[in-house]
């Protein structure tokens, strides 16, 4: 079974850099790493291929400056190869522009039984790319997967809900977005890291994918960020002294919030 996983390479959240006041987007000229949200999809894909007893995991990523830092991590985890779209024309792409590029890159990655994405990236958070990819490719879309199984030509997914999960299925190929935290992503092993060095990364431009540059980047963006502002400082919490009745105060507080 062949699985394509869309992975985003993002500025390290531990050292996120800055917002560019002109473009109103995150500066991406720093070293990028694998978005942790995507590590769950990579892990799931690797497990699916293992279970199927054959096939491979291919990564697809769109990133500036030929960045492969995050891809190498996923390759070291066990993915076989990657398609990287890197092109100056992509700067400023909105979610739809990104989806157009990823859809074409997924086609370039070869026959896939399944396309896995995260539910949203940790830096952009639009949460719309997976469904747009599915629409553009004319494939079924299943969101918020907590577990995935493929049997014959069907993908069976437990879709997370507030109360638990729904059992849903779709014919393959399909696009499935995976909720963060549902599997334990493996550590890249020493052997994996060594092997990752020589795994192929097929770097392509927008033109290579047959996309007109006017469709993507600032030129193609149908969405404009009008303003960015710092998040409000979190207010100091309330400290409850436990004088033996501490639990009652907490219960009252939660009742006041109508949580219980």
């Amino acid at each position, binding site marked *: 079974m062949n699985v394509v996983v869309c992975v985003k390479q993002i500025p390290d959240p531990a050292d996120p850099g800055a917002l560019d006041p002109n473009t109103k987007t995150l500066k991406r000229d720093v070293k990028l790493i694998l978005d942790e949200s995507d590590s769950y999809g990579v892990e799931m894909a690797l497990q699916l291929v293992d279970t199927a007893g054959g096939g491979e995991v291919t990564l697809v990523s769109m990133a500036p400056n030929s960045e492969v830092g995050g891809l*190498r991590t996923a390759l070291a985890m066990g993915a076989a190869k990657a398609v990287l779209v890197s092109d100056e024309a992509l700067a400023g792409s909105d979610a739809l522009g990104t989806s157009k590029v990823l859809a074409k890159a997924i086609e370039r990655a070869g026959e896939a039984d399944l396309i896995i994405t995260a539910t949203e990236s940790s830096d952009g958070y639009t949460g719309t790319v997976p469904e747009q990819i599915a629409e553009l490719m004319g494939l079924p879309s299943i969101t918020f997967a907590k577990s995935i199984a493929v049997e014959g030509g069907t993908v069976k997914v437990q879709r997370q809900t507030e109360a638990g999960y729904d059992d849903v299925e779709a014919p393959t190929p399909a696009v499935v977005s995976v909720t963060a935290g549902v599997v334990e992503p493996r*550590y*890249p*092993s*020493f052997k994996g890291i*060594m092997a990752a*060095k020589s795994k192929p990364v097929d770097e392509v431009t927008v033109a290579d994918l047959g996309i007109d540059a006017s469709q993507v980047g600032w030129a193609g963006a149908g969405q404009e960020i009008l303003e960015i502002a710092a998040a409000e400082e979190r207010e100091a919490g309330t400290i409850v002294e436990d004088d033996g009745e501490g639990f009652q105060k907490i219960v009252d507080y939660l009742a006041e919030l109508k949580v219980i």
Partner: protein
Amino acid sequence: MLEFTEGHEMFRNTVREFVGKEIDPHADAWEESGSFPARELFSKMGQLGLLGLTYDERWGGGGSDTTYKMILGEELGRCASLGVAMAISVQTDMATPALHRYGSDELREKYLRPAIAGEMVTSIAVSEPDAGSDVAGIRTRAVQDGDEWVINGTKMWITSGTQSDWLCLLARTSDEGGYRGMSQIIVPTDTPGFSVSRKLDKLGMRGSDTAELSFDDCRVPVSNTIGEPGRGFQQQMAQFQDERMIAAYQMVGATELALQRTVEYLKERVAFGSPLLANQHLQYSLAEVAAELDLNRHHNWVTVAKANRGEDFTREATVAKLCAARLGRRMADLAVQYHGGMGYVEELWPARFFRDARLWSIGGGADEVMLRTLARMNGIIGD
């Protein structure tokens, strides 16, 4: 100078994540119980290829350069229990290098491969109640009887001794005195006559079990001899160089983290109207540690570069171990001091670090033994 690649960086992340998820959350419980589940932890490490980085791929090793080993050491030095880090480094750099270097193929297949895979726990058994610094003074004896060694004696201070599967034992195998007539022998711990006489109650490194071991007519095949019979002392001296370097890598990682955490604490802690770190005395004493830390780290790089080129690094390892251990304990002392009362209680990290860091000026050859070696190398001798 050493070159660092993307692979090295990724490897550092793997070890850091591993330590953060598989060791640190359990450190308190392991410290409390005076031991850690070595087989369980090692098998996870084995799967990631962490236990035989520089060893030949023939035996399941990684065939890597020594730079990876240094990174492993530095990152283990950042773990919440230096005792566990020490026991891991016994497995990787104290009990197995001689077997890898000099052992027969049969021995390597039977004992090295499972050690690298983390399926067997290993110990290095050199020190004795009456001979630690003076290795030539050991008394444990192996006498040949047909194709077997019959071993009698006592070993002391043996890391992981209560749970290891085999020991790399240094024993006298002939009546020649001093540095001659010793051999390194692999002793499986299920050999009749072997027993753990006691588990030692230590000042620090409490996450790792340390034992006194007793050998009472223990019989093992003569073919369990590592390398050449009679060359045990020399082989062990070579093995000590790996031991000293892994200690030096760990203390660089440990000191760096302790320095960083102390600085963070002093930024937050207010006294006399400003953060304690506003005090120049504190700033400068920590800056001194930072300066020496650079020197130690870069000295390690030089040593690793020599190892990568296959050159002898005895002198460098001696200096590295001496200086990194001393800096570690100085940092530990400052950490306790600058945390005040909080440095003296178990609620924060400095108390444990203070106890643990103290070991490396004793274990793996005391500071004075390093100085003795250096004095001789430099011709600083009195006769």
